[in-house]
C-alpha cells in the first residue's frame, strides 16, 4: 500500500476482526451447545461459556445417536461420509487423469469429440437431472450402495480440464527425452507424468473431498436405509419441525463433528485448497 498510516491499519484490523467474529460466531454457538444438556439449551438462556456435558454428548452422539428422531450412531454416519468423500475424490482423480492423458498425449480420431463430450458436462450440476439419474441408479440396483452414492457425482469435467491444463504446461521435450530413453506411453505416465502431477492431484483431492463430504441432495434421495446415511443427512433428520422432538445438544454435537474433517482439510492444506479452488474455476 502506498500510505501506511497507523489509523488506517487500525481500521483494517478492526474490520477483519469483526469479520472473523461474525464468521466464527455460529460455529462457536454450536460448540457451546455441544457442551450442555438438553434442559440448559431448551430454556432459551444458554450461557456464553462452555458447560460440562461435552464428554457425555460426544460419546452418546458418536456411539448411540439421537434417541427420539433417528437412532443411528453418528460414528457410522461419519464413516459413510468418509467413504463417499474418498470415493468421489479418488474416483474423480482416477478417471480424469486417465482421460486427460488420452486427450493431451494421444493422436486419434474423435479426439476433439471426446473432449467436447466431457467438456459439456461442466455446465449442468446433478440437481437439474436429479430424478432421471435417480431412476437409472435404481434400475442398476445401486440404491443404498456406496457405488450409487459416488459414481453419478464424478461424472463431470472439472478434473479432466484441470489435468489437461497442467499437462499443457509440461515441456514437449520431456516426452521426447522419455521416448529416446526408451519409455513408452505407460512408462511415461508412471515415471514422469504422475510424479510431476502430485501437487495438482493433491489440490484436486482437497477440493473433491470437501465437495463429496458436503453432498446433500443426492444422498438424501438414494439412501433409504438409515445405516447408509451420511452425517450431513443425519443431522437434518435430527431437527424436526416439532420442537419437542429435537435434541439440540445431540444435533449441535453432530454439526460440530460434521464440520471437523473438511475444516481441518482447509486449514492444514490451505495452499493446496486455494490452488485447487482457483484453478478448477479458472
Amino acid at each position, binding site marked *: 500500500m502506498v500510505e501506511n498510516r497507523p489509523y*488506517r491499519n487500525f481500521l483494517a484490523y478492526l474490520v477483519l476482526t469483526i469479520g472473523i467474529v461474525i464468521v466464527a460466531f455460529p*460455529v462457536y454457538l454450536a460448540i457451546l451447545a455441544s457442551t450442555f444438556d438438553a434442559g440448559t439449551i431448551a430454556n432459551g438462556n444458554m450461557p456464553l461459556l462452555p458447560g460440562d456435558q461435552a464428554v457425555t454428548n460426544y460419546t452418546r452422539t458418536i456411539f448411540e445417536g439421537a434417541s427420539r428422531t433417528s437412532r443411528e450412531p453418528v460414528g457410522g454416519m461419519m464413516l459413510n461420509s468418509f467413504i463417499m468423500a474418498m470415493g468421489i475424490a479418488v474416483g474423480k482423480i482416477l478417471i480424469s487423469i486417465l482421460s486427460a492423458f488420452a486427450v493431451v*498425449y494421444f493422436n486419434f480420431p474423435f479426439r476433439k469429440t471426446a473432449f467436447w463430450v466431457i467438456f459439456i458436462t461442466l455446465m449442468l450440476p446433478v440437481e437439474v437431472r436429479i430424478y*432421471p439419474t435417480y431412476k437409472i441408479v435404481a434400475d442398476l440396483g445401486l440404491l443404498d450402495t456406496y457405488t450409487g452414492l459416488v459414481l453419478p457425482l464424478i461424472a463431470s469435467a472439472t478434473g479432466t480440464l484441470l489435468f489437461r491444463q497442467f499437462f499443457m504446461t509440461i515441456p514437449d521435450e520431456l516426452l521426447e527425452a522419455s521416448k529416446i530413453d526408451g519409455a513408452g506411453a505407460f512408462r511415461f505416465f508412471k515415471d514422469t507424468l504422475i510424479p510431476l502431477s502430485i501437487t495438482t492431484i493433491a489440490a484436486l483431492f482437497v477440493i473433491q473431498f470437501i465437495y463429496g463430504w458436503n453432498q446433500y441432495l443426492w444422498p438424501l434421495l438414494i439412501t433409504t436405509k438409515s445405516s447408509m446415511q451420511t452425517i450431513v443427512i443425519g443431522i437434518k433428520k435430527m431437527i424436526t419441525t416439532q420442537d419437542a422432538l429435537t435434541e439440540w445438544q445431540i444435533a449441535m454435537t453432530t454439526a460440530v463433528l460434521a464440520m471437523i474433517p473438511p475444516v481441518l482439510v482447509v486449514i492444514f492444506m490451505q495452499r493446496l485448497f486455494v490452488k485447487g479452488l482457483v484453478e478448477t474455476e479458472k
Partner: protein
Amino acid sequence: MEKRALFSSKILPYALLLPQLAITIIFFYWPASQAVWQSFLMEDAFGLTSEFVGFENYRALFAQPEYYRAMVTTAVFSTAVALLSLSCALLLATQADKQLRFAHGYKTLLIWPYAVAPAIAGVLWIFMFHPTLGTLARPIKGLGIDWNPMLNANHAMILLVLSATWKQISYNFLFFLAGLQSIPKSVIEAAAIDGSGPVRRFWTIIFPLLSPTTFFLIVVNIVYVFFDTFGIIDAVTGGGPAGQTTTLVYKVYADGRLGGDLGGSAAQSVILMVIVIALTAIQFKYVERKVQY
C-alpha cells in the same frame, strides 16, 4: 494449442477414456435426455402408464401461480445473497490486502466456512435464530419484533439469505483477494503520484481493474444460490412456510418427490438446464480460456 510429440496407438487412448466416458454417458447424458423426454410425457394417477402430451407439462407449469412465486423467490434470494456476500467479501479483501501483521492468519480465519456443508450452515443459523431457544432471537424479540422464521415468510427469507451469505463470503473473499493481489503495485503508486486519495483510488482504479473478477463471481454466486443452497433451504425452512421460500430447484425436488409429478418436475428441470446453459454462455468469455480446441 497442441503437443508437438504424441503417442500413437490404436486402442490405448480409447481404453484410457472409457471410464470417464462410460460414467458421463450413463449418469449424465442418459438422465439429461430422459429429463427432456419425460417433460413431454404425462403419467396417470398411479404411475402405471404414460402418454406423450407435447408441451402440456410446460403449459401446466406456467399456469401455476406457485411457479411464478418460485421464480420471484429465486430472483430475490439470488440478488440478496450475491449483493450481500460480494460486498462483505470485497470489504474484507481490501482490508486483508494491506500489509498487515498476521495477514496469513486472518486469511485462514476467513476462508474456512467454505468447508462447511450448506445443510450444516443452515442448521447453525436456525439454532442461532430459533424463535424459542436461539441466542440471537431473544435480543430481536426484546426489540418488540415477533421473530418467527417458522411462521413468517419474510423472517424465513432473511434467515436463508444470512446463512447462504455466511457460507459464500469465504469463496468470494479468496477470489477478490487474489484479484487484488494481481493488480500491479506500480499502477496504484502511479495513481497516488497523480494525487488521488485512497477512496478515490479504490473507485477509479482498483474497482474497475477488479471487474473481471467481480463479473465472474456474480455468475458463480447466482449458480451457487440456484443449486448449492438446496441443503440450506431444506434444513432451514423446507421451502416453507406455506411454500414461500421454495426456489426453482427446491420445487423440482418437492414436486417430483413429494408430489410425484415426474412430468412437471422434468419440465422444470429442462427449464433450469436452459437457465444454466444461458449463464454458462454469458460466462463463456471466461470459460473459453479452457477450451483452446
